[in-house]
C-alpha cells in the first residue's frame, strides 16, 4: 500500500503540475527523482475536499458506495496535466521503452509478461487516475512501483501514452481484478 502521508503531500503538487517535462533518451541508471514538493495543503485550492479525511480517495468508484453515502463526499479526482497533449504522448512512448515497460507489456502495449494495455481490458481500471495509481504505487502481481523513482511528470506522460493505446475502451475481462485472483485463476 502507498504511504498515505506521502500521497497526501503529493496531491497539491500533482494538481499544480506543470508541463516542464524533460526530454527522454536512454537512461543508464534510474535514480531517485527529486523529492516531491511537500506543500502545506491548508491553503491550496481543492484542499477542502479532503481536509481531515482519513478515507482520502483519488479515484472514484461510485458504484461501491453504500446506499445513502453523502453526496458531498466526493473523491478527489486526479487530473492528468498532459491529457491529449501530443508532445507528452510522444515522450511517454519513449519512456515506455526506456523504463523497460515495453519488455513486459509488449510493443504498442500488446501484452507479453504483463497484461495488454491495448485491449481495453483493465485489471485495475483505465481512468487516468487509476492508471496513474498503477504506475505510481505498482500492483501486487509484479508491476513495479515507479513513484519516487521517476518524476511525477513522467508518470503522467506514461499515463497519456498508455491510455492512447486502447481507443478509450473499458471492457470486462475474465482476468478480473483481485489480490489473489489476478492473473492466476486463484
Amino acid at each position, binding site marked *: 500500500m502507498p504511504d498515505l502521508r506521502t500521497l497526501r503531500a503529493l496531491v497539491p503538487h500533482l494538481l499544480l503540475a506543470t508541463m516542464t517535462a524533460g526530454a527522454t533518451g*536512454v*537512461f*543508464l*541508471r*534510474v535514480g531517485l527523482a527529486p523529492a516531491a514538493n511537500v506543500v502545506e495543503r491548508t491553503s491550496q485550492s481543492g484542499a477542502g475536499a479532503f481536509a481531515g479525511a482519513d478515507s482520502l480517495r483519488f479515484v472514484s468508484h461510485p458504484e461501491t458506495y453504500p446506499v445513502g453515502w453523502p453526496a458531498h463526499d466526493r473523491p478527489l479526482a486526479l487530473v492528468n496535466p498532459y491529457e491529449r497533449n501530443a508532445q507528452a504522448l510522444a515522450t511517454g512512448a519513449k519512456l515506455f*521503452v*526506456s*523504463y*523497460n515497460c*515495453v*519488455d*513486459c507489456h*509488449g*510493443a*504498442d502495449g*500488446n*501484452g*507479453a*509478461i*504483463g*497484461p*495488454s494495455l*491495448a*485491449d*481495453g*481490458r483493465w*485489471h485495475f481500471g483505465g481512468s487516468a487516475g487509476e492508471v496513474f495509481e498503477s504506475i505510481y504505487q505498482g*500492483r*501486487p*502481481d*509484479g*508491476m*513495479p512501483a515507479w513513484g519516487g523513482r521517476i518524476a511525477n511528470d513522467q508518470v503522467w506522460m506514461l499515463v497519456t501514452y498508455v491510455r492512447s493505446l486502447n481507443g478509450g*475502451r473499458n*471492457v470486462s*475481462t*475474465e*482476468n478480473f481484478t483481485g*489480490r*489473489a485472483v*489476478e*492473473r*492466476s*485463476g*486463484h
Partner: protein
Amino acid sequence: MTRARPAVLVGILLACAACADAGGGAAAKAPESGGVKSATGAAASALASNARIAVPRPGPPGDWPMPGGDYSNSRYSELEDVTPANVKSLHVAWALSTGVLRGHEGQPLVIDHTMYIVTPYPNVAYAVDLKTEGQPLKWRFRPENAQAAAGRACCDVVNRGASYFEGLVIYNLLDGHTVAVDAATGVERWRTRMGDVSLGETITMAPIVVKGKVIVGSSGGEFGVRGWLGALDARTGKLLWRAYNVGPDKDMLIDPSDFKPFYAHDQGTNLGQTSWPGESWKQGGGVSWGWVSYDPALNLVYYGTSNPGPWNVRMRPGDNKWTCAILARDADTGKLRWVVQVTPHDMWDYDAVNENILVDLTVKGAPRKALVHFDRNGYAYTIDRVTGEIILAEPFVHVNWSTGIDLKTGRPILNPEKTTQDERLVKGICPSLEGGKNQQPAAFSPQTGLFYVPTVNLCMDFKARPVSYIPGTPYIGADAPEMLGAGGFGGEFIAWDASTGTKAWGIKEPFPVWSGVLVTKGGVAFYGTLDGWFKAVDAKTGTPLWKFKVGSGVVGNPITYRGPDGKQYVAIYAGIGGDMGLLIAGDVAANLPYDVRERGTTLPGLAKWTSWGGELFVFAID
C-alpha cells in the same frame, strides 16, 4: 529463457528468404489439416536398436517416480497394454480440474497409487488417491508464494513438476523457494529461499533428487539475474552447494585439477568472468531453468544454461561463458567437470536448457556413453557424456543462422547475414527465439532406437536496441517478431536417429508442438498440440492412430501408470500457456473478430481452437 516476444505481435510476416515460398497462414487453417505424415530418411522399422537407456527407471514400472520418468529423462515406460492395435479404444477414464487457468507444463508423479500434481502459480499441490473410485484428494497444499512472482516470470507462470524422496513431495515455487511437503499429510516439512524475486529471479523447473540432494536451478534470464544450480539436503532443505553458471571459477565451483572441458575454447581460468566486458557478467543471465539428468556411474548431473543478458550483443562482446552451454557437475560437490558452450556469444536467445537424454548407443561404429540434446539453436547434438565431446551435430529443423557445427572446435559456423550485433534489422532468422525445440521434452524408445521430438517451425526478425539495467524489470534490448517458417506449418512431431543424425519420419502440425512426449513398450508415442489435441502415433512408423480433443491446448508432458485395478492409464494436462501459449493464456492480444483483443499475434487463429484451461485428463482402455 525465452520470454514472450517483447515486440512481437505483428502478425505473420513471411519476410525471410527461407519463407518466401511458404504457403503462409496454415496456422489459421483447420487443425484437422495437421497430421500429415512425411517420411524422410531411413524407415524406422529397419533400425536395429542397439541404443539403450543409460539409467533405467528404478522401482515399479507402473509408477511415474520422477519428472522425466527416470534419471536419463527418457520418458519411456515399460507398460505395454496399450498398443497400436488397441489404442483407438482409448477413452477418458476420469478428469480433474486444477482450478488454475495458466500454462500447465510439466507432468504429475505417480507413486504407490497416489498421484501428485503441482499447478502453475500459485503452485498448489494435490495428492490424488487412485485407489478409491472418484479419485478423491488425500490433501491439498497451498504454499505461501509471493504474488509479485507472477509479473516477474518471462514466459507464463508455469511449473514443470515435482520430485519425490522418502515420503516428501519436493518442488519449486515461482517466487524462488523450494518446498518439501509430507506425501502422507500435505504438511510443509521445510522451505528454503533460493532466489530473489524482487530482482526477477523465479523458479519454474522440476527439481530432481540425487543421493538425497535436491538439484534446483533458477529462472530469470530476461531480468539480468545471474544463473546458478544448487543442491539442498532433501531431508532438511539445507543448502549443500550452489554453483553459479557465470562468474569467476570460485563461484562456478571450478577446480582446475579436475575441470576438463573437451574443446580449447572452453578451457582456461575464470572464463566465466573474462569472456564478458567489465562486470557485465553480474547481470549475465545463464540461468538453469530446464531439465536435469543424472548418471550414477559417473556421479554427474547434466543440465543446460540459458541465454546471456541482455539480448543486445553490443553490450556484451565475448563468448559470455557459460551461457547457452551444457554442463556436467559432480553430484556430491557441485564441482564442474566439463562444459561445452554450444552457442558462444548467443545473439538469438538460443538457451541450451533443453533436456539431455542419457543413452548408450553406437555412433560411427563405436559404442558411446552419450547424451542426446535437441537445442534451441536447431541442432541435435549427440555428445559423449564422459568427456563432453560432440560426436555429431545435425540440424533437426530448418537452420540458417549457421551452416554447421565444426566438430574440431565444437563451435557453430556462423552465417554472417544472420548475426545481430549491429542493431540493424535482421530478417528471417531460423529458428526463431523459441528454438527448433523449446523446453517440451523429447522421449527415447530403446525398442525403436528413436528419439521422439516435438519441434517448432518459426523464424524471426531481430533488431537489437539499447537497454538499461533496472533491477526487477526485463533486461532484453531487442525486438523479435516471429513468423511461420518455410512450409507454412507451425511445428512437426519427428522421430530422430541420434546415432546417425537423421530424421526417420515427421508429422506436421499447424501450430508449434509444445507438449512433451511419452513413448511406451507397447509401441505407442503420445503428444499433444496447442490447439488441444492429444494424439497417439505408431512409434515405429509414425502412423497417426488416435486423437482426442481435450479442454485446452496441451503444453504438458504425457505420462503413463498402472492403476490399482491393473489397467494402464495415460495422463496429460490440458492448459494452454507457457511462452508460446502465453498469447492466449495471458491477457494479451489475440486476433479474433469476436474478441475485444485486436492486434495480430504470432499464431493467428489459435484462439479459435482453444481457450484457457487447467485440467488433467486420464485415459484408459476398457
